[in-house]
């Protein structure tokens, strides 16, 4: 899977898993959440984002109109 570049504003991956957008704050090399106890580096957050995407098993799957008819 291609490496994903991220902007420096990030949302808490734990709160996101609950479908809640909470912006992380930075403390040195780590980001931390003010709503929950999550904290982690940018790489750790990126990894968690990719884990979260695993629920979308068709995230890279094109479903055309023809395929919709038989789906």
């Amino acid at each position, binding site marked *: *899977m*291609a490496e*994903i*570049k*991220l*902007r420096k*504003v*990030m*949302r808490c991956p734990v*709160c*996101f898993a609950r*479908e*809640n*957008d*909470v*912006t992380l704050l930075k403390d040195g090399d780590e980001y931390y959440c003010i*709503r929950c106890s999550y904290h982690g580096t940018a790489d750790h957050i990126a990894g968690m*984002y990719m884990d*979260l*995407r695993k*629920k*979308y*098993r*068709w*995230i*890279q*799957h*094109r*479903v*055309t*109109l023809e395929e*919709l*008819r038989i*789906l």
Partner: protein
Amino acid sequence: MHLNLIHRVFPGNEYPLILLQQRYAHELGLKVTLMVQIDAMQDPAIVADVKNFHEQYGDEIGLSLSLGYDSPEFREKIGGPSEFLWLYNNEEKRFIIQLGVDYFRRTFGHDPQSVASYHLDSTCQKILHEICPSVKIAVAGCFEEGVKVFHGCNNSWYLFNEGMPWGPWYPAKTHTLRPAENEADWTGIIGVPHLSRDLSLSYEGRNDFFASHPANAQRGLANIGYDHPYDYNLCDLYRFQEEFNHGFSYYNVFVSAGWLAGHPTIQDPNEVSQKLYRDLLEYLAKLQKQGNLTDMYMSEFADWYRQNWPIATPEVYLAKEVLYGSKKHYFWYLDPTMRVLVDTNQGGSIGDLRPYIGKTPVATGSDQKDLMVGSYPYLIQSIYRTGAAHHFIDGARTTLLVTHKDETLDLCTCKTRVSNVKRDETGTQLILTPAKMSFSDGLEISVETEYLFTGGGAIQITRRLLNVSDPSATLTAQEYLKGCYGVTEYPQDMRGITLSVDGDQPQRLEYAYGRRKLCSDHAQTVTAVIPQITSSMALEAITPAQSGYVLEGLLFSPYYTLVLDYNLSLGKETSTWLKLNSAK
């Protein structure tokens, strides 16, 4: 499919991104409707650009009323922190709408025909129609934006706008999210939703993760960098609806420029956000060139819709889930008397039911009883109100309970899918694939469910026992409905609701959280009257029922239950009306 591409024009740091959106659209030859804010109309450079877009490319110029009122007049009369239009009091709404129309006339020399607001409640539409009768069409609601988005913004997004049509509609005077039943009931302005939402995932989750808005999908992490097939899949899902709606489907893209760079909920680099937006427009332009899509200005679409889509025409939407890959089907039906969702993954249970026939009046604003909650109330909402049992007992839903000996199986535990949709003068017929049920003694059966939506607040539910492994087995079936009412996930006061059963022992109770059960032999109708939302709901036997009951809830389970009991025999069917009505 019909398309409206809409760009909002506002001043400030993001203005260059608006120009970028415009460049993309014009390079691709797409028609754009520009929604210009009051504050933008005071900037001569922006006004010159807008006029040039109109003259050079034909862009329609419309009026944006959601926000952006800053002006000397506004500061003098109202001032204070900015509020969305529909949340001001009536006097302030009138002032702002008049201000917007006046600025528009002075700036562009004519009256607007198209307006945009994320929500446009009944007071706003009445005032707008009075002040500016030239307005034909408005962006006037966001499908299923409410509780889930409120929670998703850490309980800070106070836009409660659930229970509305997913496509264009004729807003009713007393509740603009309800489709009008006739000309007299209509506000005079055609409504279109803000964005085309995913009708599977906006029911299950946040509508602002899954919409005709690439940055929404980015917000939901539904892309991987530049790879974003979901945006095309959703577009094609809307095209698919033509096959069930007399060749009609509608799609709109209304992305504010701020989503293309620096948005705090987007973690992709700006160039990714911009490329994904461009990609979607390129796909729409490709469909247009292929003759599979007609792009229109909003007022142009309003004329087409008025001419081709009569008021009170029922609509359906077959939602196939295309991101998780679950292969789930949901089926939505809408007419001026109801909006209903059939959850085929739960054996065809009704997951969401809005009784438009009750014509519950709702308006938003600081001087209205409903304040910021503009949603149309539900009678059933399985996600907010428990649905099938997970922990304690179940909540709002419908199902069929099949009993053999001492064992009862719940149809909602069986996966089904849409087998066939047929629409003709009798109504909309929905047939599901057979549900297979296995009892612990080895008996196996399969049951087919058919829904017939006939209009007038009525749904005919038919169950057919197609197969049984032992034809001598005795089976009974309960047509089961558990209801409540509300607009959020929290329970409302149920006192004042009445429940009744007819038959050999006709009985009636007034709801007092007493968990009373009223049974009657040969009952043919079980009814709940919910005066709080001026509606009633009943199950009426078409096939003669053996008995029936109504069940009052308790504070730990604040629902009412309506049940009719039938015998189930191989090759035979049971039919029941689910009827909604207005009630006081």
